[in-house]
């Protein structure tokens, strides 16, 4: 066995291991969610579902507050992406392009904000939002999620813009663009795949975030907060259905945008 074959074996082996690691729980949750309530506790569990029923799923979706909370979750995630990219992209661009004083320090501080667990921040945040009249408001949740996602967005977009040659923007400037026009017409389109990746992860961060969402809302719950609120009292099937439902959008989103990530502009 030569080194290349070994390399590939390791890479593929690792990839398969990772995939199995992620897929098995997803799979188990999925088949449980589609198993009728009565068969849920069958043991040993059949690996291939013998009975298929949408009964549990229906029950979950028809439960009070689930559909509105799904809508809330989507809105919060979209707001978070909008806020996060609007604030993070310029910061990432500045990190990539300009050698300004305190650049290193800025980079460290951006990361350092990750040192404070949201559990510690949430009480003062709740108080502040109460004072600002933003309590129990989707925008408030989106703002907190933005703060949580920002360090990540800044560092990722920074990396993305470093990979887009500055000379391309300069060429655009010599061809008639302003500094801003060169950014819009050249750097931004070339950075789009990277920005899309940042958007995906921002979506996932927001979609899955439960702690801040629970503390900062009462009636306008996001999906995780809603599921958590009912966790103690809901039947097991409800939990499986909720789990599957929370995992699906992230998976679907990544599948949708994956093609765009991988093979932008043909043969590159």
């Amino acid at each position, binding site marked *: 066995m030569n080194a290349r074959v070994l390399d590939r074996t390791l890479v593929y082996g690792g990839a398969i291991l990772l995939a199995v690691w992620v897929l098995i729980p997803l799979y188990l949750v999925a088949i449980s969610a589609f198993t009728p309530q009565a068969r849920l506790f069958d043991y040993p569990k059949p690996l291939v579902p013998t009975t298929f029923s949408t009964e549990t799923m229906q029950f979950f979706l028809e439960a009070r507050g689930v559909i509105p909370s799904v809508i809330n979750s989507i809105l919060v995630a979209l707001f978070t992406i909008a806020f996060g990219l609007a604030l993070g992209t310029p910061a990432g661009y500045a990190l990539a392009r300009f050698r300004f004083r305190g650049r290193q320090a800025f980079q460290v501080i951006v990361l350092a904000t990750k040192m404070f667990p949201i559990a510690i921040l949430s009480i003062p945040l709740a108080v502040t939002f109460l004072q600002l009249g933003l309590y129990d408001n989707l925008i408030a949740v989106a703002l907190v999620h933005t703060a949580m996602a920002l360090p990540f967005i800044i560092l990722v977009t920074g990396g993305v813009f470093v990979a887009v040659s500055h000379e391309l923007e300069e*060429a655009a400037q010599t*061809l008639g663009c302003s500094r801003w026009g060169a950014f819009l017409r050249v750097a931004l389109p070339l950075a789009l795949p990277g920005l899309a990746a940042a958007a995906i992860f921002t979506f996932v961060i927001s979609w899955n975030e439960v702690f801040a969402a629970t503390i900062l809302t009462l009636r306008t719950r996001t999906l995780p907060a809603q599921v958590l609120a009912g966790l103690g009292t809901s039947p097991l099937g409800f939990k499986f259905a909720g789990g599957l439902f929370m995992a699906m959008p992230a998976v679907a989103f990544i599948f949708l945008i994956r093609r765009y990530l991988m093979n932008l502009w043909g043969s590159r």
Partner: protein
Amino acid sequence: MGFALVAGIGIERATKVFARTTAIKGISLDIKDGEFMVLLGPSGCGKTTLLRCVAGLEHLDDGRITIGDRDVTDLAPRHRGIAMVFQSYAVFPHMTVEDNIGFGLRMHRRPKAEITRRVAEGAELLGLTSLLARYPAQLSGGQRQRVAVARALVMDAPVLLMDEPLSNLDALLRLQARADLKRLHKEVKRTTIYVTHDQVEAMSMGDRIAVMREGSIEQVGAPMEIYDRPASQFVGGFIGSPPMNFLRGSVRAGSFEGDGFAFPISRVPPKVDGRGLLLGVRAEHLRIGDQGVPARISVVEPLGDHALVTALVGKTPIKVQAPIDVRAKPDDDVRLAFDESKARWMDAETGAAL
């Protein structure tokens, strides 16, 4: 595009300082309208920086730049009336060849019909017509270079700036592209600044050459003038292949003496007795024979149409261009004759020609 069609370039005392280095040190240079000016010099001497200052991509720390009769020192690149070909080509990867070439025209809001026509003309001129629908990733290096040139040319800007546009091409393609660019310049007659560190390229293309060294211009002149009468040891040593030979010594009573050699000399600059001097002679002005300066052959390299012979004069290796059938062998004692009227005298300390 509203720019003056007559556009000489005036650079006055231009200075650019980076954090650790002064990249260009008070350079002044006048480039005539329609002239093809080559900036030539070793890596790191400031060629790209000077070009970027003219383009407006770097801001001068001191001095000023005029294009035509306008002072452009503080203008953004897009207001200067320049078009530029970058060393890396900087072809936009997310646009087809057609969109790349037409980009500048679109930015200047030219009518659609005019853009289509001029892109077609530009593509025709550079032999890109069949490639218009492709993306840069689907092109060879040479084709990408032509896209970059076409993109700059269709702008019809009065000033064309090129930063080593041929440096990424292989030798054969380079020869071809060199001839193409020269022909193009004849046809379009833009004022051109062309950066290169390849002296053959500079000699063959330039109306004039500015030889740069460590942020300053060492000599400006027509190619043959620089070749025949280098203003300094640096220029003589940089231009020509092989570079000019230099013998270090001093003149005493009609004899040039140095480390291990002494020979009579008749044409000497005035008032140099006793001073440290360099005698510069080009390889093709030396002949191996039985008259002249004693030397010992050390290497003979046959190069097809001629042989390059290295001979030691005293301890100094001297390159001689000899006929291919030269009979010299290593360790032969020979004599080197040279035409004193073609030799250059320089000050040994400053390197400046006398």
